């Protein structure tokens, strides 16, 4: 990258949806703020659309109707079918530790959709000339292009209990980083194999190219704990890595 000063447009925005607030940090040297804002508006509409299709809190969403048996998968929106297939893959590659079908009330892709949709939003923003992109979905991030001038995004990972403490910082140019744990919204992850509350890890962070799969694998590791380390030896997951804080013993580990 050149050392010459360049005019960089940077826009930060918040989008309230999915029961939380998404935070976007978007920059470019080739287009101005107004064009970035156009891209952000397109993302906003896209996120609302995703909520309408995938929310398990909206009775009329396609996922809710699918769960209620009022909608056939074959009649559903192509995005839902895409996510369904992606979840099947994530379940297979995680050897069942991630299982969105093993949820009370039926298929719940929430653990996959956030990262998946954030990746889509990155494509939308790029099409509007954005070069440096962060999309933070309540602690799961999709990133592109680094922060600026060839420097990566420095992403801090919060301590599972001491919320004001950053326990680890990852430097990421492009890709996704997702953290799952039982600390944010109570014990919300169940072990598909036993039906009990997952006990494998207090906090699992996964980073790799695909946001949806990173989300799913982080969830899988909260279930599996150290038993899930071998997953990252699979050739399919060669581009993924994790950093996990054990449930007990106050230790963190990484498979490589």
């Amino acid at each position, binding site marked *: 990258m050149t050392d010459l000063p360049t005019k960089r447009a940077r826009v930060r*925005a918040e989008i309230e949806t999915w029961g939380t607030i998404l935070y976007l940090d978007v920059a470019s040297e080739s287009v101005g703020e107004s064009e970035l804002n156009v891209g952000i508006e397109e993302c906003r509409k896209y996120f609302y659309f995703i909520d309408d299709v995938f929310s398990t809190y909206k009775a009329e969403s396609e996922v809710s109707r699918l769960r209620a048996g009022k909608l056939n998968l074959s009649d559903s929106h192509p995005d839902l079918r895409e996510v369904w297939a992606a979840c099947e893959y994530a379940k297979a590659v995680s050897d069942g530790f991630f299982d969105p079908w093993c949820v009370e009330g039926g298929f719940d892709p929430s653990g996959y959709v956030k990262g998946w949709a954030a990746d889509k939003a990155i494509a939308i923003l790029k099409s509007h000339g954005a070069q440096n992109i962060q999309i933070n979905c309540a602690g799961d991030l999709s990133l592109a292009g680094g922060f600026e001038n060839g420097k990566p*995004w420095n992403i801090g990972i919060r301590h*599972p209990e001491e919320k004001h403490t950053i*326990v680890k910082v990852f430097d990421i140019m492009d890709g996704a980083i997702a953290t799952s744990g039982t600390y944010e919204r109570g014990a919300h992850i169940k072990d598909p194999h036993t039906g009990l509350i997952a006990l494998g890890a207090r906090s699992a962070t996964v980073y790799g190219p695909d946001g949806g799969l990173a989300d799913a694998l982080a969830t899988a590791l909260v279930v599996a704990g150290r038993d899930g380390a071998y997953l990252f030896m699979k050739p399919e997951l060669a581009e993924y890595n994790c950093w996990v804080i054990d449930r007990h013993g106050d230790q963190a580990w990484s498979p490589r």
Partner: protein
Amino acid sequence: MKRALLIAGGTIGGLGAVLSITPPHFGSSTGIAGGIKTSGSTTPTTPTATTPTAAPTQSAAPTPAKTKKAKPAATNKATAATTAPAASGASGTFTGATSNTQFGPVQVQITVSNGKITAAKALQFPNRDFRSQSISSQAIPYLVQETIAASSSNIQGVGGASYTSQGWYDSLVSALAKAGMK
């Protein structure tokens, strides 16, 4: 500050020595003070804008990739013990400018002791309707925590957290400038 000591000592909740807990920008003893004016005015409770020091990120961000290696816990402990009390930056309470967000105005007030943020709170936060209110009441504690974390870590995003607000960030930067810390 408690947090700084905890991190540098590697004893966070007992996670401690086994973790590579040293955040990259904490790699050197100057990392703590790197984003903080250590030799400036110490006039307490004078929220007059002081001249911001030279870009703090320059000293706070030396080649992030390298610093992933954790220092031995013992070294960190020693470092923390000597540097943390010695930090003698600004002290007092500083109020940031009001930042207008789409949800309403946000204004942050920080309390600084010896150049470190010990507390941060929202003087103004959007509460136009119930929905916003419930989000705000959830968000503020996280933001306070992230603020305190960010005061010694040069990071642009927080994973595993809930919510980071631009309005909060903007007002915080202004408060930090007043404190001569940024």
